């Protein structure tokens, strides 16, 4: 028995600590699971969509499910390769001048929209200006706010003038609301269910709650792509239904959650791909009010919790410890081995609480939504762990819409309204800036309580990182900023989840993207 227990511990340790980097390495190797066969053209992929997209408008949908659906239809000025490096897309090259305040994009010639029209600089100007228009109500407007003016220099050259340097603009691909649509198209069509872009697939039909049907864009600018003649995404929100359909050979692709993946382990003809991706499970803390305004208290609470236990219970071990920037994102992230508070230290935590003046603990509420069971599970681990510090945690479960509204309240009021702790996750950002500046710069737009009491050091670091263009220098600045927010527990970051995608062996050449998006279906084929 004792041996069994220690064996379990060792296994767990190995997975998360020793091989924190290793797991990542093997995950990426898994992501490169491309057979040596030559691609074959033809065939229709039948896949499951795990969530019904909330509208297909590329400019004002905040939901990841929407991005998953419109990604195949629309393209941005740049795109990502398999290693999440920026690559040319609708722009073939770009130049940054005027001390980082002018971006000039050269557009790819002869790119055709799905309606046959040729894409020009006017379309780019129109599309980005649509996002900038408050009437469009784009939730990603703040990412493009720096743009003061868009100039069409000639049909294949667009110039964007900023009021301050903003290096994020170079990674247009990651800015969700940056798809290029034909000029005037939004006024003519209902973009929530229709779509015309330049992407590898044309939208044939979207029947909400039922299916999204795509056909190959025969005029795609990359002549060799895509290989598939078409794709049908059937909306199957029930994971068991997706698993059953995979087993019965009805679908060749499905996204799975960790428990579902264990069900399919070893099923014949099915490969389960997994690698850490930009999905950092965390708790947002409101640092405005007592007792959470005291960094010692936040740290003590964090120290009482075993990160590994959170990973085990929330996602059955399918994750790696992570700081603010998701583990595995370029070279921007903090090495998981160097993250503080990985192992619980209850005695140390008790001492900190005494120092902060809370030897007998206190009461606190954590809000979470069962829409994402892992958020509830991580919250329950915290609740249980904090009992050792006499901290009485109420875990309040809320329906997603209600939760979002609550969270928005505290975001919009600098922590004056709303509650103290929220369980959530951060997904992909086009730049490390997106994981830090909006939350921790005193001028950040999602700052929960730090707006009135700026941390001059942090403000300086995050401001400077927006001004320098040298990669190594930016890396150093973001590393330092991350160390500070992690040390002070501005939020509690737990882990980067594994992206788990099950594919039939008939689907070849597909690779996972760190963004979690299904970008590389354009390079997949049916054997």
């Amino acid at each position: 028995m004792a041996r069994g227990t220690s064996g379990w511990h060792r296994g767990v340790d190995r997975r998360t600590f020793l091989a924190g980097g290793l797991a990542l390495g093997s995950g990426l190797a898994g992501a490169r699971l491309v057979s040596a066969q030559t691609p074959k053209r033809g065939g229709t992929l039948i896949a499951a969509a795990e969530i019904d997209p909330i509208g297909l408008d590329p400019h004002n949908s905040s939901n990841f499910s929407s991005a998953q659906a419109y990604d195949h239809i629309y393209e941005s000025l740049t795109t990502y390769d398999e290693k999440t490096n920026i690559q040319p897309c609708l722009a073939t090259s770009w130049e940054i001048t005027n001390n980082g305040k002018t971006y000039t994009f050269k557009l790819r010639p002869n790119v055709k929209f799905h309606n046959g029209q040729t894409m020009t600089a006017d379309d780019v100007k129109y599309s980005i200006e649509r996002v900038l228009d408050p009437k469009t109500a784009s939730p990603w407007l703040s990412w493009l706010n720096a743009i003061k003016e868009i100039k069409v220099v000639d049909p294949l050259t667009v110039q964007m003038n900023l009021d301050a340097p903003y290096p994020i603009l170079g990674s247009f691909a990651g800015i969700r609301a940056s798809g290029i649509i034909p000029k005037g198209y939004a006024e003519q069509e209902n973009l929530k269910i229709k779509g015309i872009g330049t992407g590898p697939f044309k939208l044939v039909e979207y029947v909400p709650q039922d299916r999204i049907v795509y056909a190959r864009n025969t005029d795609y600018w990359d002549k060799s792509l895509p290989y598939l003649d078409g794709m049908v995404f059937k909306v199957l929100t029930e994971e068991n239904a997706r698993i059953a359909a995979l087993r019965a050979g009805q679908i060749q692709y499905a996204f799975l959650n960790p428990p579902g993946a264990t069900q399919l382990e070893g099923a014949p003809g099915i490969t389960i791909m997994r690698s850490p991706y930009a999905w950092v499970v965390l708790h947002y803390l409101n640092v405005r009010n007592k007792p959470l305004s005291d960094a010692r208290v936040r740290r003590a609470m964090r120290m009482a919790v075993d990160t590994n236990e959170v990973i085990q219970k929330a996602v059955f071990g399918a994750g790696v410890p992570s700081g603010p920037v998701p583990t595995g994102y370029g070279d921007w992230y903090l090495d998981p081995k160097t993250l503080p508070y990985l192992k619980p230290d209850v005695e140390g935590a008790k001492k900190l609480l005494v120092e902060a003046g809370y030897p007998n603990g206190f009461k606190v509420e954590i809000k979470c939504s069962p829409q994402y069971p892992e958020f509830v599970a991580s919250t329950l681990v915290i609740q249980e762990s904090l009992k050792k510090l006499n901290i009485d945690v109420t875990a309040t479960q809320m329906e997603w819409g209600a939760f979002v509204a609550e969270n928005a309240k505290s975001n919009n009021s600098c922590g004056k309204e709303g509650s103290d702790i929220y369980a959530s996750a951060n997904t992909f950002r086009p730049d490390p800036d997106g994981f830090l500046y909006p939350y921790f710069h005193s001028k950040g737009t999602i700052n929960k309580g730090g707006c009135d009491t700026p941390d001059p050091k942090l403000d300086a670091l995050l401001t400077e990182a927006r001004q320098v263009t040298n990669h190594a220098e930016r890396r150093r600045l973001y590393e330092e900023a991350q160390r500070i927010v992690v040390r002070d527990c501005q939020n509690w970051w737990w882990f980067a989840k594994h992206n788990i995608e099950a594919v039939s062996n008939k689907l070849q050449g597909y690779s996972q993207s760190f963004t979690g998006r299904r970008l590389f279906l354009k390079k997949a084929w049916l054997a």
Partner: protein
Amino acid sequence: MRYLARRAAWTVLAVLGVSVLIFLLVRLLPGNIVDIIAGTEGQLSRAQRAAVLREFGLDRPLPVQYLLWLGNMLQGNFGWSFRTGQPVATLIASRLPITIELALLAVLSVAFVGIPLGVAASVSRSLRVRTLVQIVGVLGLSLPNFWIAILLIIGASTLFGWLPALIYVSPWTDAWVNVQQMFLPVLSLSLGLSAVVVRMTRSSMLEVLGQDFIRVARAKGLATRAVLLRHALRNALIPIVTVLGLQTGFLLGGVVITEQIFGLPGLGWTLLNGVYQRDYPVVQGTVMVFAVTFVLVNLLVDLLYTYLDPRIRYE
């Protein structure tokens, strides 16, 4: 006739009441479309929020919103979905047939399986038959239908490696494919319902079978079959029909989850998504359809009474 007129008036009042209730309830839910658009990661500025509210007419006073909605609805315009921009009436028209088919098949299978089973249980002297019916009854009542649905899906795919076609096919296009698609959802819906009906039929039959006129019928030398079906069942049907009618409400609730699990694009799932996404026009429209259906079914049940028992007369 006067009765009918009175009932009709009450029906209209009930539906109006529901319309006020649902209109207010959906707005009482914390969070609205603005929050849903922003999500947890994006943000909307004050100006953007105002623009969204204006676009959807949510900036107007509540009574104005309500009257506009009611007025439009009377002219057949249920508004437009916030989420897809489609007319809600079109959405309902395309989704309703699926839900009606599902509910109708479920009720029919309950009637044709549950009632005979109940009758059999009431007359059978075999302990085995009675125990079986009891077990089915208890299980059917205590297992939630969404759980049965999941078990059925897993069972079909692992045991038989079979699942019906993924994309819904209407019975007019291909009846056989449609029957296959409806089989599991109907089964999962009707199991629980059958249990109620079996138990109701059994107890109702037992009560009737103990009455004098049954003994008279038997004494006259009528065949058991005739006694059971023509005399006993006919008299036992009233509570059964009542239960079936009431259970239609349960069924309408059941389709909400069942449709989602089986990926059937029906009205129930539309409603569920509408609630999650605070798509007020969709929620209001679908709830109105459900409410009207429920009221009409009850009216139908009341009218059926007079047919089943000519002694019942509505004045």
